């Protein structure tokens, strides 16, 4: 009889060679104890964290920790129900109001994870007569949302407004609604979307526009509202989705919109309706972290300064870093045979980053993906750069230094 697991044989072989090439499973790293937002204990060693998406360091926010403790003490540790049944407490509605006000929108929906926010919004909005037009490098949650929807799904070339326009024009479906989905900052590469140009295409073609600001919320724009704010085109964005698990340091997802029909989406959105809501302590901590973020705009400036520091350092070392400076900086290596030993050596020398291997990377080359935090000190960034230089040398990764 056929084994249920025979389909995993290829994966088992691939994982086996990754482990054999580096000595450990890069997808099973355990942070034994977080010491601060920037340092954790891994394999018994204090390790600099450069791969946690904790952009503002708010996972360790004192205000959020206190709010979580108080909420757990007064409301309990779980809701035991869905948002549309018994799982909405006044804290949930309060957080939705806070998020909507922050984005200056009519209403917000809070989901249990960022993944579910994309899954839920895309599948609820795009019906069988509609078209979803996705950036080719979209996050898995966007692809999965499109699979859960009944819509026709078309990809356009990554970050190309011209290609988006061409594919929308090619559709020739005047009676179908079209929803364009893009991300503010792309999680693997740190690429930033050309939002003003996408907004122009949206206006000209009459499509709707959804922007996933998961990695740009709290990072881009004067107030931290993301890539659409940074380019002054928020009015063209119909739906902003995002997550609390990056800049706010907790967990959960949201969608904000001015469309009054958002209230009806709540009743037509399986990933919202058929899962338990977030527990009170997470909701309270998220609201407090948002207050922290609003009260400290200097965190955003420090984050961008730190990103520029790390990026300049990589360029000086001669590593192939992302073109644009953003808090996600991917170092591209040419081969998996270079990337695996280098990632392992970085960890042994006390720096944790994310190892991304093809086909999970956009152009079939491996990435050492780094995420910067506002709370990294200049010394920590210099130390990480020194470790990158040493690991590259020891692992025979070719360097092409530029003048600083």
């Amino acid at each position, binding site marked *: 009889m056929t084994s249920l697991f025979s389909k995993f044989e290829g994966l088992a072989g691939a994982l086996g060679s990754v482990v054999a090439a580096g000595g450990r499973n890069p997808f099973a790293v355990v942070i034994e104890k977080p010491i601060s937002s920037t340092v954790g204990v891994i394999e018994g060693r204090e390790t600099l964290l450069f791969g946690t998406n904790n952009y503002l360091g708010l996972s360790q926010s004192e205000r959020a920790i206190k709010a979580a403790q108080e909420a757990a003490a007064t409301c309990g540790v779980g809701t035991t129900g869905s948002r549309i049944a018994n799982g909405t407490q006044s804290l949930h509605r309060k957080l939705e109001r806070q998020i909507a006000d922050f984005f200056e929108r009519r209403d917000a929906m809070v989901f249990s994870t960022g993944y579910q926010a994309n899954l839920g919004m895309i599948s609820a909005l795009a019906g069988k007569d509609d078209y979803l037009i996705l950036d*080719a490098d979209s996050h898995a949650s966007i692809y999965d949302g*499109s*699979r859960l929807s009944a819509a*026709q*799904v*078309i*990809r356009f*070339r990554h970050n190309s407004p011209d290609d988006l326009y061409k*594919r929308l024009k*090619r*559709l*020739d479906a005047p009676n179908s609604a079209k929803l364009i989905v893009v991300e503010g900052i792309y999680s693997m590469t740190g690429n930033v979307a050309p939002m003003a140009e996408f907004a122009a295409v949206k206006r000209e073609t009459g499509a709707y526009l959804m922007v996933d600001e998961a990695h740009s919320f709290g990072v881009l724009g004067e107030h931290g509202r993301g890539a659409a704010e940074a380019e002054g085109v928020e009015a063209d964005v119909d739906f902003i989705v995002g997550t609390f698990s990056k800049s706010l340091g907790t967990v959960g997802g949201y969608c904000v919109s001015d469309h009054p029909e958002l209230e009806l989406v709540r009743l037509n959105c399986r990933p919202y309706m058929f899962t338990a809501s977030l527990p009170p302590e997470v909701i309270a901590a998220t609201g407090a972290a948002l207050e922290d973020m609003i009260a400290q705009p200097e965190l955003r400036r420090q984050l961008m300064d730190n990103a520029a520091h790390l990026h300049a350092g990589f360029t000086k070392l001669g590593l192939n870093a992302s073109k644009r400076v953003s808090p996600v900086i991917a170092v591209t290596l040419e081969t998996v045979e270079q990337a695996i030993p280098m990632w392992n050596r970085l960890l042994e020398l006390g720096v944790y980053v994310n190892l991304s291997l*093809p*086909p999970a990377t956009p152009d*079939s080359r491996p990435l050492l993906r780094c995420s910067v935090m506002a709370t990294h000190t200049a010394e920590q960034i210099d130390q990480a750069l020194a470790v990158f230089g040493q690991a590259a040398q020891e692992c025979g990764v070719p360097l092409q230094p530029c003048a600083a």
Partner: protein
Amino acid sequence: MSETVESVSALIIQKLLANPKVPRDIDGNCKIMEDLAFDSLAVMNFVMEVEDSLDVSVPLDKLADIRTINDLAACIVDLKNKG
């Protein structure tokens, strides 16, 4: 419409052979993922190139039913005829 399954299949094979990693002896019955060792992302990216050559868009849900080069060609001809 001037395209036929044969002409589209020939164009797809010509495009595939431009990639040196693709085996030289492919024909319309080759399975794209199994015989050409394309992963799901490579398939989607390759289909995008074919779309631009033929000015057609293949919705992703249609890709799920496509196994061979001829399946892809038949799907494209069908989409072109509907347009």
